[in-house]
C-alpha cells in the first residue's frame, strides 16, 4: 500500500453563525485519484480553500499533514510552493493573452524582468504535448474552446511542479468527448505517479476514474469508500450524499400531450461574429402542450444558439425561417415580442445571463413582467412582495426572505429564482438550457418535479442538456443536433445513450 501524501485531521471551520466544516477528515494516498463528493454547501470548496491557504492557518481548527509533516499555510503561494495546485471551476485565464503567456503568468521565464520568449514557447510546447493539446503556444485563449482552456489550466499546473492537483468540477462545462479526454489524461498522470483530488457532481465519471471517494454532507465527513475493495454503485454514492436512498432520480410522469404549441420551420442562422459562416441549417422542430422535448448534442452542436436565435434573435444574424405558436405565425424579432408570443428562455449561464445577482429575490422574480405588478408604470410594492412570496413557497426557494440578494443563494435556489421570473410571464413554451448544471442531486430532483408540474399544467417544455441520462429520464421526445443540424428525432422508446451517440456519429461521417 502506498504512503499517505495528504492527511487533513479534524478540520473545523466556522464562519459567523455557521459551522461550514465540522471535524472533517481526509486522507489521500500518493499516486491515487481521490474523489470528493457532496451536495452543494456540503463543504467541499471550503475544505479545499483551507487546504490551499485561502483560509490561512489559525482561522480553522485541525491539522494538515502533507508529505509527512504538519503544515501551516498562510497564503496560497505557501501551498503552491509545496506543489498543491487548485484548478477552479471558473477558469483563471486571461482571454486576450496567448496560451504561453497564460501558462507562465506570474511565473515568467525571465532574467531581470526581461522575458525569454524562445524559452517560454519551447517549454509551453513541452507542456502542451504532455496534455495532448495541439494548438500553437501563441494561440489566444479566447480563440479556443472551454475544453481546451481546461487543458491549458492543467498545463499551467504542470509548469509549477505539481505534487497534488485539485480539480474543482473540471468537466462541468465540457461535453462528453472533452470530458472523456480530460479523464483519460488524469488516469495517464496517475500511471506517472501524480496524485489528484477531483470534485465533481458527475457520478458516472467519478466511478470511472476514482480510487477512493470521500463523501461530505453538511460540513462533516460521511465516509471514505475504496473503489478497489468493493464495487461502488452510483446509488451507493448518492445514498451517502443525501443520507437516504434515492429511489428514483427522475420523478415519474404520465404525459398528457395536446396540440402543437411551438413550431419552428427551416430556421437558418449565420454566426454572430464570423458573419459569413452559416451556423444553423434548416432546423425544424415542434413542441406540443404537456410535452417535454429534449435537444441532445455535443458542445457546439448549436443547441443554445438555436434557442437564443428564436428567443428575440438574441444570437446570430441573417436569421430566416418561420416560428408559429398554436399554428399561427408569430413575430419573435425582439425579446419583448418573443415573451409576448408566449416564449420563455431559461439560460444556461444563470449567473451572467439569468440573474441580477446584486438584486434580491423579489426584484429578480418580477423583472420580466414588471407590468404584472404595476399600473401606469408605478410598482405596487405589496403586490410585488406577494408575487415573490408565492413563487418562493411554490418552488420552495430556500432563503431567509424574498429580500435576500440572489448572489448569496445556492445554485439550485438561484435556478429556482430564474424559473420564478419566467413562470411569472406566464409562458406557453419554456426553453430550459442546461437547467440543472452545477446543481446538487437533491435540488435536481426538485427542478425535475417542477418541469413535470409545468408539463401537467399544459405547458410545452424544450429542454437542452448535455447530460444524456437527464434527457432520457425526463423527455417524451428527443431531437439530436450536430453541427448546426437536427440529425435525428427519437421517441422515448427509441432513445438511449447509444442511439443518441450513434445519430451524432453517423451524421458526423456524412459531412
Amino acid at each position: 500500500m502506498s504512503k499517505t501524501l495528504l492527511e487533513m485531521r479534524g478540520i473545523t471551520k466556522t464562519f459567523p453563525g455557521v459551522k461550514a466544516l465540522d471535524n472533517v477528515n481526509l486522507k489521500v494516498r500518493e499516486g491515487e485519484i481521490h474523489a470528493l463528493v457532496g451536495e452543494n454547501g456540503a463543504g467541499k470548496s471550503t475544505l479545499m480553500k483551507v487546504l490551499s491557504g485561502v483560509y490561512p492557518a489559525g482561522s480553522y481548527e485541525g491539522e494538515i499533514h502533507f508529505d509527512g509533516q504538519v503544515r501551516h499555510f498562510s497564503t496560497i503561494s505557501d501551498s503552491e510552493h509545496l506543489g498543491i495546485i487548485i484548478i477552479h471551476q471558473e477558469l483563471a485565464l486571461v482571454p486576450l493573452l496567448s496560451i504561453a503567456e497564460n501558462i507562465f503568468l506570474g511565473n515568467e521565464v525571465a532574467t531581470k524582468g526581461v522575458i525569454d520568449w524562445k524559452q517560454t514557447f519551447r517549454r509551453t510546447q513541452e507542456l502542451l504535448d504532455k496534455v495532448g493539446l495541439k494548438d500553437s503556444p501563441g494561440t489566444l485563449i479566447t480563440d479556443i474552446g472551454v475544453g481546451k482552456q481546461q487543458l491549458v489550466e492543467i498545463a499551467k499546473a504542470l509548469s509549477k511542479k505539481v505534487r497534488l492537483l485539485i480539480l474543482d468540477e473540471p468537466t462541468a462545462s465540457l461535453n462528453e468527448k472533452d470530458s472523456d479526454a480530460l479523464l483519460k489524461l488524469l488516469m495517464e498522470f496517475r500511471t506517472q505517479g501524480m496524485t489528484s483530488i477531483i470534485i465533481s457532481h458527475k457520478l458516472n465519471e467519478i466511478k470511472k476514474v476514482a480510487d477512493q471517494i470521500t463523501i461530505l454532507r453538511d460540513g462533516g465527513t460521511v465516509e471514505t469508500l475504496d473503489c478497489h475493495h468493493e464495487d461502488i454503485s452510483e446509488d451507493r454514492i448518492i445514498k451517502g450524499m443525501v443520507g437516504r436512498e434515492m429511489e428514483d432520480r427522475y420523478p415519474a410522469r404520465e404525459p398528457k400531450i395536446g396540440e402543437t404549441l411551438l413550431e419552428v420551420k427551416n430556421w437558418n442562422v449565420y454566426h454572430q461574429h464570423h458573419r459569413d459562416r452559416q451556423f444553423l441549417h434548416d432546423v425544424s422542430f415542434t413542441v406540443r402542450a404537456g410535452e417535454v422535448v429534449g435537444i441532445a448534442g455535443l458542445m457546439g452542436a448549436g443547441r443554445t444558439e438555436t434557442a437564443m436565435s428564436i428567443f428575440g434573435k438574441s444570437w446570430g444574424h441573417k436569421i430566416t425561417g418561420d416560428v408559429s405558436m398554436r399554428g399561427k405565425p408569430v413575430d419573435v424579432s425582439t425579446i419583448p415580442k418573443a415573451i409576448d408570443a408566449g416564449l420563455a428562455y431559461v439560460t444556461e449561464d444563470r449567473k451572467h445571463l439569468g440573474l441580477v445577482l446584486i438584486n434580491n429575490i423579489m426584484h429578480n422574480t418580477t423583472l420580466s413582467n414588471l407590468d404584472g405588478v404595476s399600473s401606469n408604470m408605478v410598482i405596487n410594492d405589496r403586490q410585488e412582495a406577494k408575487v415573490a412570496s408565492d413563487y418562493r413557497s411554490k418552488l420552495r426557494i430556500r432563503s431567509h426572505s424574498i429580500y435576500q440578494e440572489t448572489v448569496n443563494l445556492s445554485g439550485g435556489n438561484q435556478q429556482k429564482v430564474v424559473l420564478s421570473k419566467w413562470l411569472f410571464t406566464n409562458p406557453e413554451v419554456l426553453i430550459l438550457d442546461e437547467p440543472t448544471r452545477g446543481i446538487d442531486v437533491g435540488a435536481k430532483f426538485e427542478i425535475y418535479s417542477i418541469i413535470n408540474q409545468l408539463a401537467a399544467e399544459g405547458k410545452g417544455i424544450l429542454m437542452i442538456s448535455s447530460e444524456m441520462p437527464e434527457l432520457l429520464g425526463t423527455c417524451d421526445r428527443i431531437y439530436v443536433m450536430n453541427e448546426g443540424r437536427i440529425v435525428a428525432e427519437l421517441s422515448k422508446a427509441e432513445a438511449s445513450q447509444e442511439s443518441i451517440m450513434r445519430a451524432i456519429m453517423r451524421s458526423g461521417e456524412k459531412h
Partner: protein
Amino acid sequence: MSTDTATKTTQPSVGEYLKKNIREYGLLVALVVIMIFFQVITNGVLFRPVNITNLVLQNSFIVIMALGMLLIIVAGHIDLSVGSIVAFIGAMSAIMLVKWGLPAIVVVPLAILMGAIMGAAQGYWVAYQKIPSFIVTLAGMLVFRGMTYVVLSGRPVGPFPKEFQVLSTGFVPDFLSITDPSTSLIKNYVALVAVLLLVGYAFYAGLRERRLNAANETENEPFGFFAVQMAIIGVVAIFIGFQLSTYRGLPNVLVIMGLLIALYAFVTTRTTIGRRIYAMGGNEKAAKLSGINTERLTFYTFVNMGALAALAGMIIAARLNSATPKAGVGFELDVIAACFIGGASASGGVGKITGAVIGAFIMGVMNNGMSIMGIGIDYQQLIKGLVLLAAVFFDVYNKNKG
C-alpha cells in the same frame, strides 16, 4: 442562516438592520456632524438665514445634475460633459434672451429641449454604437465647450431680463403676510408653513407606509430608527424653514430642486423605469434577456441628463447674470463626486437619489463652511478629494467586512 421556507417575513433585529443599512444612516449622520462642526467653528455663521439661502443657491445646480448623474451611474455609465452643457446652454439662453429678445417663457423650454438633444447626441453613441460613455462624453465635453466659445465669440453676454433672473435669485412671495414684515421677526410665513406641512406629511406618509407594510408582512425598519431619523430630518428642516422665514423666504430654486428630488426619488424607487435602470446596471445582459430594451433605456438616461444639465445651466447663468465661456468648468467632477459620496457604485446597479442629494450637500456645506473660515481654494480641493476617497473607502470596507 435561516432556511425557513414559510412566507412570513421575520422582522430584522436592530443590530442586523443597522449593519445592513449602515451606509445610509452613516451618510445622514455625517452630514449632520459636518453641519454642526461648521456651525460651531464659524461661530454660527453657517446657519444664518442669509447663508442658508446662499448655500441653497450655490448647490442647487449640483444637486439637480446629481439626480441625472445618479441614473447614469446606476445604469453603469458616466457623463463628463455636463459642465460643458451648462456653459453652452447658458450661452444659448443669453443669446436668445439678450440678442434675439425672446421672452423667458419661450427660452426656458427651448433651452431644456436643446440640452435633451445634446444628451441624445451622446446617448446614441453609447447606447446603439456601444462606445464607452467615458469616451463619448469626454468628446462631448470638448465639443460642447468649443461650441460655447464659438457662439459667444469668446465674450460674456448679459445682463439678463428680470423675469429670467428670478429663476435663480427669486423667492416665493409671502402671500400669507400674517404680520407686518418690517416689525415682525418672521418676514415670510409661506416658508415656515410650507416646511411644517411637508414635515407633517412626511411623518404621516412614513407611518402609513409602516402600517401597510406590517399588514402585508413586508420588511419594516425598526421603529426606533424610523423615529430618530424622522426626528433629525424634522428638526433640521423646521430649523432651516424658520431661518429662511426670517429672511426672504423660500428661494425659487429650492422649490424647483425639492420637486425634482421628490420626482426622481419616486421614479427610482417606485416605477418600472427606475427598476429597469437598476437591473440594467446590475447585469446588462440578464436585463436584456429579461425583455428590457437596454439600448433605449440607456439612450433616455442620457437625454434626461442633458435636460437636467440644461436646467442647471440656466440657473447658473441667471445667478451670475451673464453667460461666460468658462461657466461650469469642473462641475462634472463635483456632480460625480456627490453621487459616489452618496454611495453609488462605479460598477453600476447601486445608488440612491437621497444618497446623491446628501452627498451633494456634504460637498456644499464643506465648500461653504471652509470659505467662511477663509480656507483657500487650494486646500478646499485637497480636503474635498480626501473626503471623496474616505467615503468610497468606507463603502469598500463595509462590503468586504459584510
